[in-house]
């Protein structure tokens, strides 16, 4: 028996429905008519790193502690990127639980996936956290096997569509589809070669593709390219046809005991404008910048010179190249760190005068409490201060149209609890549709509204729902199921007849099966502790 869990990152339910209605996604139609279907509710906000961490561990974000791609340190202004070691310091991925019970698993592209788990079966790391020269597969020989089988295996989908002509779009799309066809072929051979009882295989292509060309679906989008024919709005469904074909291949080879689960970790929608929260906090008096001449010079540059230079560079199509060159330059032989010299970053914040700040995108705000080295908000003032800040955030208006930007601002503990109160945000801002809260890599101090980095994304409540399908002889025919991302791990374990580990927040979704009994809940910590002791021993041997 095998339980296949196929992730299609970022696929919105309405796109699948459009494909079914037009008869172009027959396998999705088959799964809908002969299995269970509904929605997958994402995390708040729907950030892929947090979402897939929840999927992998069966724990809600407040209990695994991975809140974003970039994580603020406890009582510190420093931040680090999330990786699998961070996730595994607080929670255990479902494939490691299954491994501890002797079950082989196949895992591909579930962030944070690097370094790979050394579990029996195979583990291919994700396209975000894997270093460009790092090993992406375990067992190690799998990497060379994949590279030998393919012309140029890419761990992640192709990004960087910046053109506005039909020819540039066609060139990008051809290359994108070529890479994804190759990836599907690799996955098919992994399924055939390894035959694991549990497979967790995620394709990031839909999310990346929609980030790049999602505006082609929306003629009202400010970046809608009038030079490109409307027919190209069909491209996302063309991509889904590739996965529909793959799912057809998979369903045809399934035995009567096999089960297929298909999900997306969130939806997708157009983004018209973005908010730089640190810039808004600065303009609202909550964040202060250093008064040094360099910071003042940079402020002048960002407010008066850089936007014009950016416009010219974009017209000359050299903007992204220049930006990347600057961002990558950390000094080198010149001794001048251009990235720091040209961006208004955390180094420019006057912490002794700052009450609140953000370190990553998607609306997670931290209050500069006295637990921080230069914190100024005392425990006695915290609640009153936060209430005022929430009120001001919810009153945020578009400077030209007066339109409300923020749907709601939530207290951190109401969203994530208090298990990781030292690193979890104090406030979580959910923007209205068509807005995104951008990463504060730099900022214009006189404007908080900026162009979005990509024309489509997933930020508002509308994009918090992804797809859910279940298929197989043991799956009931039922609609309108809403799966939490945390439900997948216990549901897979239960379907395999394994006890569910204590501490998972998700639950076994018995209603989607015809005749699978609810599993028991058991303690796994002994196995995990024994395994960690062995790993520690072995790593010290070498």
């Amino acid at each position, binding site marked *: 028996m095998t339980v296949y869990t196929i992730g299609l990152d970022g696929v919105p339910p309405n796109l699948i429905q459009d494909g079914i209605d037009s008869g172009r996604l027959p396998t999705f139609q088959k799964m809908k008519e002969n299995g269970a279907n509904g929605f997958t509710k994402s995390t708040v906000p729907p950030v892929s790193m947090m979402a897939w961490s929840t999927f992998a561990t069966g724990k809600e974000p407040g209990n695994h502690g991975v809140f974003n*791609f970039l994580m603020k340190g406890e009582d510190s202004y420093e931040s*680090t*990127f999330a*990786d699998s*070691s961070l996730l595994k310091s607080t929670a255990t991925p479902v494939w490691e639980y299954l491994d*501890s019970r*002797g079950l082989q698993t196949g895992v591909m592209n579930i962030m944070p996936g*690097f*370094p790979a788990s*050394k579990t*029996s079966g195979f583990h291919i790391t994700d*396209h*975000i*956290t*894997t*270093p*460009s*020269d*790092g*090993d992406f597969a*375990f*067992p*190690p*020989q799998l990497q060379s096997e994949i590279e030998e089988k393919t012309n140029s295996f890419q761990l*992640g989908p192709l*990004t*960087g569509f910046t053109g506005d002509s039909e020819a540039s779009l066609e060139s990008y799309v051809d290359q994108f589809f070529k890479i994804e066809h190759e990836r599907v072929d690799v996955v098919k051979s992994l399924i055939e070669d390894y035959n694991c009882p549990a497979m967790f295989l995620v394709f990031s292509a839909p999310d*990346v593709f929609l*980030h790049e060309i999602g505006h082609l679906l929306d003629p009202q989008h400010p970046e809608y390219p009038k030079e490109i024919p409307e027919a190209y709005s069909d491209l996302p469904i063309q991509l889904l046809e590739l996965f529909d074909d793959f799912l057809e291949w998979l369903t045809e080879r399934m035995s009567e005991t096999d089960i297929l689960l298909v999900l997306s970790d969130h939806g997708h929608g157009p983004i018209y404008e973005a908010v730089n929260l640190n810039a808004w906090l600065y303009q609202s008096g909550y964040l202060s910048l250093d008064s040094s001449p360099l910071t003042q010079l940079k402020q002048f540059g960002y407010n008066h010179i850089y936007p014009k230079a950016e416009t010219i560079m974009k017209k000359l199509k050299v903007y992204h190249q220049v930006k*990347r060159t600057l*961002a*990558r330059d950390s000094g080198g032989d010149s001794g001048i760190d251009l990235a720091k010299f040209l961006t208004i970053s955390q180094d420019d914040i006057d912490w002794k005068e700052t009450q609140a700040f953000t370190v990553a*995108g998607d609306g997670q705000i931290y209050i500069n409490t006295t637990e921080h080295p230069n914190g100024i908000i005392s425990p006695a003032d915290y609640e009153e201060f936060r209430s005022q800040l929430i009120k001001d955030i919810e009153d945020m208006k578009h400077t030209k149209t007066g339109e409300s930007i923020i749907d709601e601002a939530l207290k951190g503990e109401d969203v994530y609890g208090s298990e990781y109160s030292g690193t979890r945000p104090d406030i979580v801002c959910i923007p209205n549709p068509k807005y995104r809260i951008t*990463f504060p*890599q730099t900022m214009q101090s006189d404007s908080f509204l900026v162009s*979005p*980095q*990509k024309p489509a*994304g997933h930020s508002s409540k509308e994009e918090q729902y992804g797809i859910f399908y279940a298929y197989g002889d043991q799956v009931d025919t039922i609609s309108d199921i809403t799966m939490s991302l945390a439900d997948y791990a216990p549901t897979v374990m239960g379907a395999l007849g394994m006890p569910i580990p204590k501490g998972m927040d998700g639950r076994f979704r018995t209603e989607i099966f015809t005749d699978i009994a609810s599993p028991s809940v*058991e*303690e*796994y*910590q*002994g*196995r995990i*502790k*024994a*395994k960690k002791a*062995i*790993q520690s*021993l*072995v*790593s010290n*041997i*070498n």
Partner: protein
Amino acid sequence: MTKIDVPKQTYNSVERVAKSLDGFEETEELILYILSEFCREIDGEINDKNEQDVNEDDIEERLEDLGYL
């Protein structure tokens, strides 16, 4: 299954650990688990000696490509 003999003293030690670790009902289960996991880890280390760290520049570049930075 191949049978192996374990010295009484070792068996007693493992039995004590099995009782203290939640999740192992029998001593034999822990002995089997330790042996199989130890071999797998050793095998993994032999094939994969270079423990690699995350490269923050690479992640930053990737997130920038994807529009997150």
